[in-house]
C-alpha cells in the first residue's frame, strides 16, 4: 500500500460508512449516504475500477436519495394522517 491516494480513499470510506451508520435520522442518513457514494466512487477509481465507480455514481448520486426521501415522505404523511384521526 505505497500509494497515499489509496490510503486517503480507504480512510474516507471507513469514516463515512461509520458515520452513515452512526447518524440515526433517516433523512440525515440519506445525506451521509450520498456522500458515502461519492467517496466510494473515488475509491473504485483509485483502485483502477472505473466501471464500478461509474455504477456507484449513477446509482448513488440521485436515484438512491430520491427513493429514500420519497419513502420517508410517504411514511411521514401516513403518520400525520394517523395522528389526525386519533
Amino acid at each position, binding site marked *: 500500500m505505497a500509494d497515499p*491516494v489509496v490510503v*486517503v480513499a480507504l480512510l474516507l470510506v471507513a469514516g463515512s460508512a461509520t458515520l452513515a451508520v452512526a447518524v440515526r435520522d433517516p433523512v*440525515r442518513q*440519506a445525506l451521509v449516504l450520498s456522500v458515502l457514494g461519492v467517496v466510494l466512487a*473515488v475509491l473504485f477509481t483509485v483502485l483502477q475500477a472505473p466501471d464500478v465507480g461509474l455504477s456507484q455514481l449513477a446509482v448513488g448520486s*440521485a436515484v438512491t436519495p430520491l427513493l429514500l426521501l420519497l419513502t420517508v415522505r410517504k411514511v411521514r404523511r401516513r403518520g400525520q394522517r394517523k395522528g389526525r384521526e386519533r
Partner: protein
Amino acid sequence: MNGWLLAAAVTLGGGLTATLWGVTTGPLGRRVVAQNLATAVACPGLLLLSQAYERPAYVDLALVLAVLGPVGTLVFARLLSDELTGHPPRAWWPTWTAAALGTAVVLALCAVTAPGRATVKLLVTGALLVGGNVVAGRALTGGIRGVRGG
C-alpha cells in the same frame, strides 16, 4: 507519485474530510450545503486522477458526476423544502470556494492537454459542474418553495 496524484490526494482528502464533517454535524441546512460540496470537490478530484493516471477515459466519471451530482442536491432541495424554508442555509462561501476550485482545476487541465476535443469535453464538464453547483446552492436557499403535495 507525480504532482497530479499529489494534488488529487490533497483535494480529495481535505475537501471530502471537510464535507464529511459538515454533513454529519450541525443543523439540516448546513448538512445539505455540505452534501452539495461533495460533488464540487470530488469532480475536480476525479479529473486530477484521470490526468495523474494518464487515462483520458476516466474523464467520463467526472462528467457523469458533474451531471448527476447537482441533480442529487436538487432531490434534497425539493423533498426537504419544508424543513429548509424555516431556516434557509446561508453558506455561500463554501459554494463559491468549491466553484473556484473546479474552475482552477479545469483550466489547469486544459492548459496541459493538447487543444482539441478533449479540451472541449473538459470545459463542458467544468461548466456543468460549476453551473450545477451554483444552481443547486440557490435551490437549497429557497429556490423551491411550497412543496406540499407535489
